[in-house]
């Protein structure tokens, strides 16, 4: 058990090096769907964070009682319950945002990130470790969503969160807030990040440049 990453390491890993969206390619459906604006993206990030943290904690608490053939049932039940709670909570206190996000909140149930973290981490580690892992992964997810949303909203409307950032002669690239813009932004950003990671690892090699 000594070669397992510490909770703090897990937390930091989740944000960039093992980012769930850009490095692990998990949870892609909401990444494309809710990033037309920065506010929906942040709300979705918060919702996933709540579900991931709660599910990880509960699964970690009962990890010693779980046997292999019941795992998936227990994970699914827990995740579905917390997603229902999140959905109702949003509909009660953030009604317009709930309507904007629409069916993508319940789709958190099949978000691969959560099931994957429950399986890989929470069912084997202590509560604190599982919680740290959840926070790291959720932070990474929110960062990825916010990054894509920032680009799309800025280029698509010239505004960020209701503030006009770009000058008025900017012809809003409406395609950015439409479906093609989602795919293109995501693909280009991912290519950029791949290039950056390769560049960093090239520069770290002992025989490499500098």
């Amino acid at each position: 058990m000594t070669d397992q990453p510490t909770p703090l390491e897990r937390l930091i890993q989740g944000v960039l090096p093992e980012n769930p969206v850009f490095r692990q390619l998990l949870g892609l459906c909401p990444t494309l769907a809710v990033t037309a604006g920065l506010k929906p993206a942040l709300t979705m990030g918060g919702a996933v964070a709540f579900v991931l943290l709660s599910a990880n904690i509960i699964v970690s608490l009962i990890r010693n009682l779980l046997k292999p053939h019941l795992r998936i049932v227990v994970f699914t039940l827990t995740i579905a319950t917390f997603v229902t709670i999140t959905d109702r909570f949003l509909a009660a206190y953030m009604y317009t945002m709930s309507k904007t996000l629409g069916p993508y909140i319940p789709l958190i149930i099949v978000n691969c990130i959560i099931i994957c973290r429950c399986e890989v981490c929470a069912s084997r580690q202590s509560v604190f470790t599982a919680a740290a892992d959840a926070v790291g992964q959720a932070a990474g997810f929110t960062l990825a969503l916010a990054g894509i949303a920032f680009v799309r909203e800025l280029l698509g409307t010239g505004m960020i969160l209701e503030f006009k950032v770009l000058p008025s002669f900017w012809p809003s690239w409406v395609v950015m807030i439409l479906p093609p813009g989602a795919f293109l932004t995501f693909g280009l950003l991912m290519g950029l990040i791949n290039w950056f990671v390769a560049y960093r690892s090239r520069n770290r090699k002992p025989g490499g440049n500098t």
Partner: protein
Amino acid sequence: MDYALDIFMIAVSGMLINNFVFYYFVGICPFIGVSRRVDMALGMGGAVTFVMSIAAFMAWAITTFLLVPGAPITRWVGSLFMPAAAAARIDLTILTYIVYIFVIAGSVQFVEMYVRKFNPRLYRSFGVFLPLITTNCAILFACLTIMSHIVGVENPSEIWGLGKSLTLAVFGGGGFTIAIVIMAGIREELDLCDIPVPFRGAPITLIVAGILALAFMGFAGVDAGLRQAISGG
């Protein structure tokens, strides 16, 4: 006549105009992961459509007869314990998501068992996809769309029956299949191209998907025009 028009519009809309992959962004994970070869893509698409239809049927049935306030089975069971008026107000819709996900998982298990037993050859070709389908957003999304047309709809004539629900499932799955097969065809050609290293794999697939989404945007507004042309309004 009106009903047939509605069914036709749901079919066209589900398949082309509001394509599950290029408009609603559901089913992206298998779309990027499985779309390397056309025959595999076809198998995946077929499996998804089949499971989606079964899940949609069960989702519609359970929602209409069990979950909504005033549903027949709930009302009957409730009337054994409380006055009929209160039984008619029992609202089980809070359990919708949990019920749906277990219905989907159950449908996948059922299909897998059935195909493995009665058609081993078919199982060898697409059986490997079946466990992946449980976490496929597209199936849950189809069930959720059906739910949104039953729960909370004020106008009773607009509540979806079995016909409309199944149409959405079949043609939505068909649209997913079209998307994934087109993608596979393109990727087979893309394998022969010289793509810059950072873009190999997922990034170039997403960019191609973006261009495809642009193409599919050409279908927007077709349903309004079709509806007007057919009903002569």
